[in-house]
């Protein structure tokens, strides 16, 4: 063990994570090397002082900065849930428009072949949707948004289309 090795092992030596055999070697070196004894002492003191003087080393946040930040962030945070609501409402609107367009295409026979196959498959197992679309096709009524349950089925149908695939005939 020499001074150079000791200097580079000092952190492990002081935090107690060192193998006891190497520690014994270091102890032995420090006991007979004044330079290393002082080096280790001042190294340890450096760490201790940095911790002790935490308060002096810290940067105080100036009052006006604190006021500005608080005012800005509190109002930004208040707006944030509002923004979330806006996004959610917009997503809902887009979804409803899509469902409406799907119903129109279904009535007018303008579904893409993929969408038509999936629609037929669904209607075969879902009496409620079958009834709804049969009525819709025969009534020639004004299209409006289907009731919640039907709407959810249509959404699921739309979601199960392959990505990028449109539900209507181009």
């Amino acid at each position: 063990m020499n001074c150079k090795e000791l200097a580079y092992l000092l952190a492990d030596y002081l935090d107690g994570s060192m193998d006891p055999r190497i520690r014994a070697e270091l102890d032995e070196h420090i006991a007979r090397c004044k330079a290393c004894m002082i080096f280790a002492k001042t190294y340890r003191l450096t760490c201790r002082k940095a911790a002790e003087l935490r308060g002096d080393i810290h940067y105080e946040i100036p009052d006006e900065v604190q006021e500005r930040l608080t005012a800005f962030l509190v109002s930004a945070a208040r707006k944030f849930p509002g923004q979330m609501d806006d996004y959610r409402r917009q997503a809902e609107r887009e979804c409803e428009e899509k469902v409406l367009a799907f119903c129109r295409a279904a009535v007018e026979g303008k579904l893409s072949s993929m969408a038509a196959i999936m629609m037929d498959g669904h209607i075969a197992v879902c009496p409620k949707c079958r009834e709804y679309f049969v009525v819709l096709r025969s009534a020639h009524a004004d299209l409006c948004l289907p009731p919640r349950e039907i709407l959810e089925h249509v959404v699921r149908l739309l979601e199960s289309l392959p990505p990028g695939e449109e539900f209507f005939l181009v």
Partner: protein
Amino acid sequence: MPATDRWKEDEGLLERLRKGAPGAVEELLRLYQGKIFSLAMSILKNESDAEEATQDVFMTVIRKVNTFKGNSAFYSWIYRICVNTCLMRLRGRRRGDTVAIEDFMPVFTEEGMHASPVDDWSKEVERKALNEELGKMIRKFTEELSEKYRVVFVLSDIEGLSNEETAKILGMSVPAVKSRLHRARLYLREQLSRYLQEGKAD
């Protein structure tokens, strides 16, 4: 006070932030604004930069509080956001005003002995009257370190986080943190040594 105790209030706060409860943001700021500003200052070393960074940090915290997974401590999550925000700001900025840490590493002879006498300044440092001045000097010397070492030193030795926590915040391994921390301490020891020697000569 150990870091873990300082942040005990976090759990309830987190819940209230997620719910958007009134006063939650104010509480968050009361607990962390000073800490985050100080950390940003020690990385960015400029008050208006630190203010902007602090603002960005809390905006990110408020926006992402729902995505925060409880697998790390809340404060270490905030610290990580702060360190990332500050390092992003530093990127691309000219880095001129830091010292070369190599100039402050101990020098050894070929036989591995100390090449120059090692001065014992422990007695001077213990003088109470010197404390305030010493705090200023440690801050100044820390500011002169390149951020690679500065951030580790600030988190570990000044903020008092464990090496494991620092490693987690910085996304580094524990040995890498230890090695940087050790070099930063060697540097600071040498700086203090030179500074106190000068004081003696006056």
